[in-house]
């Protein structure tokens, strides 16, 4: 079921098309198909900007506002990252998307033995507020929003962002951060988890609750179907998991006595675009509709703008290949087209060299230009949801809606998303599917250009981003300097306050902000959590 299949005869004529989500595609669609799925314009689509938002969340789509381009950027020291941020902004990028190195993502300081060889490697190293002061220097934090790709310690990094904004004189009310902050998906794919499920979800709840009052322009959680799909999930499972995970965070905050209308409007989604393009377009349209209906019917959300599925649709890393890497530039362009046809609010592309290395300035710029060409040359801003009314797309969107519901039902029957993640149910499912896909590539049942067909020709040399050991040493030196200069009294006091608040089950955010302002390190804050919460026990799969 997880593998898309083409059934062909001996003359290469296609007899049947089976999409990854299990839907069969017919050779021809007519108005009869719409009748067959019970399609109604009013109920299933409505105009753009109208419930259930299948056609998009804004009445005028990209006419009123083009998408935000947000290439994933950051490496080495905060200084190097700051320079790269400015370069991307000077090239017309409209939002930042901060990459953190693995030690930071996992809550280790740069001088920790666990961090050896990884400092600044896949993103920027952040130990203390000093690093954010350097990274965000001369960036207009009231004008440009920042995605912070961090999860297990997202609460700490959001606190750090507030601290740096205040240090530079911005009112927290005007800054806009989007920490990824989706820990449940880390447990399914990507793997940057630290704490057990329950306290980890509680930390997500803390950031949402805190943002309501203190950081109203911040989007405290970006729910990621993206990485679940990268790990092997079908498009239908991607959306099913994303909605159920978002619901788990909503439930946590409602249980604290808050009204869902007061916070859910700041949720955003990060979804994946690789794969059969029709299936993806139908997926995004169905996802908007199901999310709106979920909020309205299950949670009684009242304000229309709170029903919007605001999304970053992009990336598609798994779709890119190591073989013939220049072909990935073309793949990226098609993925971007799919994202635009699906009404993405924000987008970013994996760069063509990412099967080799983190992107060079050159490859990152090609990705950005790809996105700009679509918006400014190709007419993608002309009209909203241009595929609406297609017999095929509308039939497929309805079918996809049902497939997603089936997948949600399957997880709910198992006992819900929290249980399914804690016990490895979803992990097993996606690992099995990833293996089936690999076998499909091996047998040639799945076609991949340059990989199992059209393999002739030379592959270009990829320019590698060089890891800089000196940067790592500089980072450690800088951390030592901060530790020498900071007030030990303030460090001890703020850490003690954090410890007490954590033990008492209070919202930790204000305490984290105080710690950050006292130049407490990410590792020191994380250790408090590690001691109190313990660590996630990864369910065994084999």
């Amino acid at each position: 079921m997880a593998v898309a299949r083409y059934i062909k005869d001996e003359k290469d004529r296609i007899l049947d098309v089976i999409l990854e989500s299990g839907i069969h595609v017919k050779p021809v669609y007519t108005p009869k198909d719409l009748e067959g799925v019970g399609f109604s314009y009013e109920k299933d689509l409505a105009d753009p900007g109208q419930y259930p938002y299948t056609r998009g969340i804004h009445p005028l789509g990209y006419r009123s506002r083009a998408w935000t381009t947000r290439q994933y950027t950051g490496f080495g020291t905060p200084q190097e990252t700051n320079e790269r941020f400015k370069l991307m902004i000077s090239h017309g990028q409209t939002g930042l998307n901060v990459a953190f190195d693995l030690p930071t993502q996992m809550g280790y300081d740069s001088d920790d033995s666990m961090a050896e060889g990884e400092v600044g490697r896949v993103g920027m190293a952040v130990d203390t507020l000093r690093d954010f002061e350097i990274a965000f220097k001369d960036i207009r934090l009231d004008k440009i929003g920042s995605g912070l790709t961090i999860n297990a310690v997202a609460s700490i990094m959001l606190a750090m962002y507030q601290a740096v904004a205040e240090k530079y004189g911005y009112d927290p009310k005007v800054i806009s951060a989007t920490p990824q902050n989706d820990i449940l998906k880390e447990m399914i794919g990507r793997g940057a988890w630290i704490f057990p499920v329950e306290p980890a979800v509680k930390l997500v709840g803390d950031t949402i609750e805190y943002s309501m009052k203190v950081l109203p322009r911040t989007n405290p959680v970006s729910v990621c179907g993206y990485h679940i799909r990268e790990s092997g999930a079908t498009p239908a499972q991607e959306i099913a998991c994303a909605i159920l995970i978002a619901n788990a965070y909503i439930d946590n905050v409602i249980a604290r006595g808050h009204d869902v209308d007061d916070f859910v409007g700041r949720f955003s989604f990060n979804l994946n675009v690789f794969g059969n393009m029709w299936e993806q377009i139908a997926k995004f349209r169905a996802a908007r509709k199901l999310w709106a209906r979920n909020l309205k019917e299950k949670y009684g959300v009242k304000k229309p703008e709170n029903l919007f599925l605001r999304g970053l649709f992009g990336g598609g890393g798994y779709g890119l290949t190591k073989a013939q890497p220049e072909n990935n530039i073309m793949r990226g362009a098609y993925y971007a087209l799919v994202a635009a046809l699906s009404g993405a609010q924000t987008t970013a592309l994996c760069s063509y060299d990412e099967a080799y290395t983190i992107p060079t300035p050159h490859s990152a710029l090609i990705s950005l230009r790809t996105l700009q060409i679509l918006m400014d040359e190709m007419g993608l801003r002309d009209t909203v949801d241009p595929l609406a009314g297609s017999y095929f797309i509308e039939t497929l969107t309805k079918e996809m809606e049902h497939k997603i519901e089936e997948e949600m039902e399957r997880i709910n029957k198992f006992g819900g998303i929290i249980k399914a993640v804690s016990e490895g149910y979803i992990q097993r499912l996606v690992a099995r599917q990833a293996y089936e896909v690999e076998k499909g590539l091996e047998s040639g049942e799945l076609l991949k250009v340059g990989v199992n067909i059209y393999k002739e020709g030379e592959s270009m040399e990829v320019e590698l981003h060089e890891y800089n050991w000196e940067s790592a040493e500089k980072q450690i030196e800088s951390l030592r300097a901060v530790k020498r200069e900071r007030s030990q009294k303030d460090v001890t006091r703020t850490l003690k306050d954090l410890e007490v608040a954590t033990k008492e089950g209070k919202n930790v955010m204000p305490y984290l902000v105080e710690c950050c302002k006292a130049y407490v390190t990410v590792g020191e804050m994380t250790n408090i959590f590690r001691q109190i919460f313990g660590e996630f026990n990864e369910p065994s799969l084999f």
Partner: protein
Amino acid sequence: MEVKKRLKILIAKPGLDGHDRGAKVVAQALKEAGMEVVYSGLHRTIDQIVNMAIQEDVDVVGLSIMSGAHIPITQKLIQKMQERGISDKLVFVGGVIPTRDIQKLKDMGVAGVFPGGTPLSETIAFLQSVAKKG
């Protein structure tokens, strides 16, 4: 009659990188090819991996590394294996490995390098040939 020994392999995820799609795919493929596979789980230290290799008495250790830190991590593993007297066990490496690093890894003593995109059949064939030699 001599009983053919089943090859036992530890698939390990060293360090902080959590991308495990590839490691899990390879683990399943080797299992289906008739080998015995132990999967380490995420975020393992080199000491933990070496201990697992000894406790489970595996013949081969496969490292999966996607972060770019394959050189220092592999170096550490091989050194530790020597210290603990298990350098007879073979090491292979997969993940995001640039072509120019393949020889470097082999010079350290890595028996096989399988960057992302390597057909599973190639990895299986390599391990089967290892089993025959053993």
